[in-house]
């Protein structure tokens, strides 16, 4: 297979395939950074144990302020990327997250073994494999719920008390879900020997070609066809 | 200015709050904290309430000659340490900013007060008492004779121009001196709000 295959993003790469363009990468890291700041400052309020740590950000009341400012970035920042500049792949990601093919289902079944270093057979995967779609869904719904409940908590007096009551558990639930998902995601992207290669996709945009073939074979093929069709 | 407030629950000694587990499960029962009593080491002086005629006993807690707390006198047989809403608020009067703390004078026709020393104030009043007593003195008066009914002159020795309103709010000794003072001056016009 010709190595010089131009990726759909038109970048020449020796043994690499462009997976995420600058827009996607920027959204991802914007989301990551704001998420962890929010997690840290949020736990400052939600968990007694974290109170002393808040002095790192200038005390608890400062933490609550930071939480609100960063929350706005977390929501508007990431949201804006869906409309700013070349946002096509953002929508692509969104659509893919909601379409589970057989391949995805099989990947999910195989995923458990993969996770612990075993090797399971699963059909060729698209740009986002089954596991990553699950992770995407958790993030999408998690972010939505945490944003809405956050708004209700922030402007509690303007909402019916009943609604405010439910905002706290939902906010907390969304936090747990997303944090749990993030733990898995970080492991896979940084530590898991097979999948840690994917991190470069989010850093430079390119993933090694053999990684692409192994984990996202279907995507790798399409990329080649799209390339030739262009 | 917000009164210094809520320096309550001054924690003394180590507060042994049991660190509730992060799991938010049923928390430990907090160890009782050592609470300081704000009245610790204060001097307790009894007094009597200044409102209705219950004569309830007050107990004033004084620290460094400042009144820090006021409650009912537990030894008083009538109120046994309890107080009504008015009496319970009496600490405020000790340092109320609205209290008049220096003599004041309003000149005739003026629309404001001016400060005046006690010396000048008492001097002015004493002179006025003498002036009005002398000018309004009625030594005698025509009255129908108790037997004949014909008008006869009787000695009455009255300072007609002075009225002295006493008060049900002042102590016995003050009420007594007020009566004695008005009778010696010669004014029977000594009344007070017991009648209204």
């Amino acid at each position: 297979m010709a190595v010089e295959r131009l990726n759909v993003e038109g970048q020449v790469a020796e043994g690499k395939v462009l997976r995420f363009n600058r827009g996607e990468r920027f959204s991802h890291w914007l989301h990551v950074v704001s998420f962890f700041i929010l997690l840290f400052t949020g736990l400052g309020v939600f968990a007694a144990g974290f109170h002393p740590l808040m002095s790192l950000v200038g005390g608890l009341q400062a933490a609550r302020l930071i939480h609100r400012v960063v929350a706005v970035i977390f929501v508007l920042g990431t949201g804006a990327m869906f409309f700013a500049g070349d946002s096509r792949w953002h929508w692509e990601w969104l659509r893919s997250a909601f379409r589970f093919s057989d391949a995805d289902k099989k990947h999910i079944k195989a995923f458990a073994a993969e996770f612990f270093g075993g090797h399971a057979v699963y059909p060729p995967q698209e740009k986002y494999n089954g596991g990553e779609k699950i992770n995407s869904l958790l993030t999408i719904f998690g972010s939505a719920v945490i944003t809405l409940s956050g708004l209700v908590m922030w402007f509690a007096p303007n909402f019916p008390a009943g609604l405010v009551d439910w905002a706290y558990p939902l906010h907390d639930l969304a936090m747990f879900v997303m944090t749990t998902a993030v733990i898995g995601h970080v492991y896979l992207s940084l530590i898991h020997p097979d999948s840690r290669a994917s991190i470069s996709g989010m850093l430079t945009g390119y993933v090694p070609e053999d990684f692409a073939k192994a984990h996202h074979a279907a995507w790798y093929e399409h990329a080649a066809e799209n390339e030739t069709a262009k | 200015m917000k009164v210094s407030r809520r320096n309550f629950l001054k924690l003394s000694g180590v507060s042994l709050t049991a660190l509730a587990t992060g799991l938010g499960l049923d928390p430990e029962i907090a160890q009782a904290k050592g609470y300081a009593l704000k009245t610790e080491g204060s001097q307790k002086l009894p007094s009597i309430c200044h409102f209705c005629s219950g004569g309830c006993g007050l107990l004033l807690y004084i620290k460094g000659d400042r009144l820090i707390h006021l409650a009912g006198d537990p030894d008083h047989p009538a109120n046994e340490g309890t107080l009504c809403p008015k009496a319970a608020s009496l600490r405020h009067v000790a340092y109320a900013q609205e209290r008049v703390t220096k003599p004041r004078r309003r000149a005739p026709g003026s629309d404001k007060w001016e400060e005046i020393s006690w010396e000048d104030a008492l001097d002015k009043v004493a002179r006025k008492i003498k002036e009005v007593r002398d000018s309004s003195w009625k030594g005698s008066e025509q009255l129908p004779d108790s037997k004949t009914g014909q008008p006869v002159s009787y000695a009455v020795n009255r300072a007609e121009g002075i009225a002295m309103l006493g008060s049900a709010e002042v102590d016995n000794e003050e009420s007594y001196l007020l009566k004695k003072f008005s009778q010696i001056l010669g004014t029977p016009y000594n009344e007070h709000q017991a009648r209204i």
Partner: protein
Amino acid sequence: MTRKMVLADTSKCTGCKACTVACKEWNQLPAEKTQLVKSYQSMRTFTPDTWSFVTFDENYSISQMHWLMRKAQCFHCADPACLKACTSKAISKTESGYVVIDKDLCIGCGYCAENCPFGVPKVDDQQKKAFKCTGCIDRVENNLKPMCVQTCQTGALEFGERDNLMVKAKKRLAEVKGKYPKAVLYGEKEMGGMTHSYILLDSPEAYGLPSHPVAPLALTLWKDIIRPVGTVAMGGAAAAVVFGILGNALRGNYGPPESGKGGKE
């Protein structure tokens, strides 16, 4: 220290509001601007500076007036919603049965205020602290009566050991029922049992109180299910990662490519 109790026999309460004044005097709470709310009640709800006030409800039926007066303050529940809601662990229960906010730990987040079924704790925005009746814990811990009980002239408020005072309350309830058939004892079981219990002369609703007060369902779900399950889930994920690493290490996946058994496919 044994569990204490304050019994408010509202049949003896004349609404003189001495308890409100004594509470403010002892705790040095400043007065606030008020307006008559209904009947002779001048305070509608609790505020950071008002921890105890008297409610007035006028019920007139079959040409008989029942003027219901009740000293409102924190009930000091045995199963307090505020404690459950407090994420800063600032609220704790004392052996003597009081629910106390530790002023230093409190961050003023207001979760206690939002979750108390009686709307008792209130957050002071300047100080970023929540405030409510402390039960005069400083007095009780020094073997004194709470200030409201000490000042009550009619004898409507009584303080003592919960066991024998509750027995006395039931006896008194029987007597009060003679004149007020709808009288109830409020606080024996509600919210797990309240340190401030009442003999009410009518149903709790007549006093604007819930007959069966409970912590909001949302709070229970949050603290008894979501929080523990979430923590376990997060712990589980972390554990899974550890095992993942071990798994991969055992399988030599971390070694140089050629020595790895597993293919890249």
